[in-house]
């Protein structure tokens, strides 16, 4: 089976989707001839022609809006917003139009499309190339929100997203495009070829939306996480020698509440880990859900490990990033008797 990094797996998913369905069109800033700044759309224009894979003007609202028109026509746009930090000009189109079209027309017009965007920090990207804005989209009825954490899931989830009848916001953890990240930025990057989940089947397969994955079974506590932080949290648990059950959510909306509930009821403790800022972050929703549904099974308050409520800094990136030290401190609290 081919071994791929996340970029290769996502690129392969594009090719599989575009070969299977002539209505899939790909566009975004630098996404055409050059193949995208992260090279996820490399080779698509060569294989599928300029009318199905092309460069877009630097206009995120224009990209999202024209995708709406294309979806109304009957195409399936698979568009790239170059960085999640640039998605805000498209926010009105995504929130007011893409998300609500099925509802406002009672299904007369639907918006099957995928809006891909690299998110997250740990790459010295400063405040405009490091953000994790997922909760701005999980808060909006009508959108599905997906965050893969490895090459296998990236391809399978992207294909599922393309085939989904509803619009999907697909946030790609760019820090782990080339290899998983332990959270120790001073250590060399391990390539995906030396890590798990990098064997990616050729051709078509899907990883269903709305299904979390228990990436490590354990008894001591449940760790709810997604994206880059799956790996950072797993490394921290291993270093602390704790028998943690780690749940990779994979899809934030719709959320796999059954897997979460079963795990927390089993372990009685819950730690939530994400990169995004703390206040109104997706961890707040997770914490509330766990408290509402598993309160009588909890042996300690739910703990959140998150980015801080500051803009993402450039110089103090590793003070901002929720790394091993922050996770270990929270772990102590959640494991207290």
């Amino acid at each position, binding site marked *: 089976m081919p071994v791929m990094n996340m970029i290769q797996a996502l690129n392969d998913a594009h090719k599989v989707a575009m070969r299977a369905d002539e209505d899939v069109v790909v566009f975004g800033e630098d996404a055409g001839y050059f193949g995208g700044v992260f090279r996820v759309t490399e080779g698509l224009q060569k294989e599928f022609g300029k009318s199905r894979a092309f460069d877009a*003007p630097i206009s995120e609202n224009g990209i999202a809006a024209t995708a709406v028109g294309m979806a109304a026509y009957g195409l399936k746009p698979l568009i790239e917003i170059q960085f999640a930090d640039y998605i805000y000009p498209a926010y009105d189109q995504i929130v007011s139009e893409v998300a609500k079209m099925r509802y406002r027309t009672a299904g007369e017009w639907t918006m099957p499309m995928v809006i891909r965007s690299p998110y997250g920090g740990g790459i010295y990207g400063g405040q405009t190339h490091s953000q994790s804005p997922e909760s701005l989209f999980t808060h909006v009825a009508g959108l599905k929100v997906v965050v893969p954490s490895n090459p296998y899931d990236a391809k399978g989830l992207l294909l599922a997203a393309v085939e989904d009848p509803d619009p999907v916001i697909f946030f790609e953890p760019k820090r782990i495009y080339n290899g998983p990240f332990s959270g120790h930025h001073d250590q060399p990057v391990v390539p995906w070829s030396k890590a798990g989940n990098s064997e990616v089947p050729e051709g078509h397969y899907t990883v269903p939306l709305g299904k979390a994955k228990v990436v490590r079974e354990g008894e001591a506590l449940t760790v709810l996480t997604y994206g880059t932080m799956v790996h950072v949290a797993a490394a921290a648990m291993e270093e602390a020698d704790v028998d943690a059950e780690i749940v990779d959510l994979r899809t934030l909306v719709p959320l796999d509440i059954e897997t979460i509930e079963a795990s927390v009821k089993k372990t009685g403790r819950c730690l939530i880990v994400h990169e995004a800022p703390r206040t109104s972050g997706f961890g707040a929703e997770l914490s509330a859900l766990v408290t509402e549904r598993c309160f009588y099974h909890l042996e300690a308050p739910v703990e959140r490990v998150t980015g801080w409520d500051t803009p993402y800094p450039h110089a103090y990136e590793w003070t901002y990033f929720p790394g091993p030290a922050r996770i270990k401190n929270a772990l102590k609290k959640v494991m207290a008797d």
Partner: protein
Amino acid sequence: MARSETRTNRPALKLHVPEPPYRPGDTPDYSHVQVPAAGEAPRPDSACDDKETIPLTTHLVRVLDDDGRAVGPWDPKLDVEVLKKIYRDMVTVRIFDDRMYRAQRQGKTSFYMKCTGEEAIATSAAAAMDAEDIHFPTYRQQGLLVSRGYPLVKMMCQIYSNAGDHMKGRQLPIMYSDKEKGFFSISGNLATQFPQAVGWAMASAIKGDSRIAMGWIGDGATAEGDFHAAMTFASVYQAPVILACVNNQWAISSFSGIAGAEQATFASRAVGYGIAGLRVDGNDVLAVYAAVRWAAERARSNNGPTFIEFFTYRAEGHSTSDDPTGYRPKEESQAWPLGDPILRLKQHLVRLGAWDEEQDKALEEELSATVRAAQKEAEKLGVLSDQGDEGKESMFEDVYADMPWHIAEQREAALKEGE
């Protein structure tokens, strides 16, 4: 913050906040508005270089002169039956608007928006396009639906959010949608539809289709970023699209100067994007038809997009929630120079010998009866004000294709409320 103490030898800077020429209490006089004579504007070939249209972005394409004659190169030379059809549609729209305005005032629904004075634009544009072409309208193009033969009863059911509303009461009154009639769902977030129309047109070109799209916007919403996105994408990809700005002079209470009209015409926005531009008398059915037909020919022949400014006047309030006497003189609509589009076409038909007062009276009576009958039928299915909570569970449907667990749980909770 205090003014800087340095550089005191320089003049104090001044902020210019545009102000309309007349406010309530003033006597409006629009004799300074330049209205070129009908027939004066040249008509280039629809395949021309976009630069040939530059003079037309500050001119005004007009066909009907003050005596009701059709003159000049833009005269579309329409069959009298086509003219009568457009006339009928315009009168229908005006009667419909009056009935629905009254229905709102009677408390039967929450909201209504008339297009009084602007009836020519949508009805004539629809007539100039093919039935398979799609429109991405604003809330003042009800004439498109009327022209395309959409049932008045269905429009009213939408206005009443009743059992006959195929959108299950999800949208504010007049936010129509009909896929079959090529009428895209109207949004209350202004300008969003403008670049969407471009995307639809791009899709049509991607698929090698022959259908084109027409996007609509008001003068006020040209200030939105989506306007710039639409113009940029239309230009970059030479999309087969007609982008129409209905300049009715008013965006709720803000006159067109607040959207930049003091400095340049809206039509001239086209020039910087390298898009063909036309400025058209929006109260002149023949000019509207000719301009849309020209732009449609251009788009259909892969000669690119056209931006059209329809110069008109919003004769009534923005909506039933608006009282224009608070910001403009009552007499302003009378003083506006371009006249009533319905009367202008009537004058033309009479001059052609194709119409007379008797026919006009009969038509008005017929259409009034049609609208009244439609209203009666629609009201049998209920009005907003006497809507109960029967069927309320439907409000949880269609958020997604399949209802996820969290919405299903909320639906259960809602249905148990008050038990």
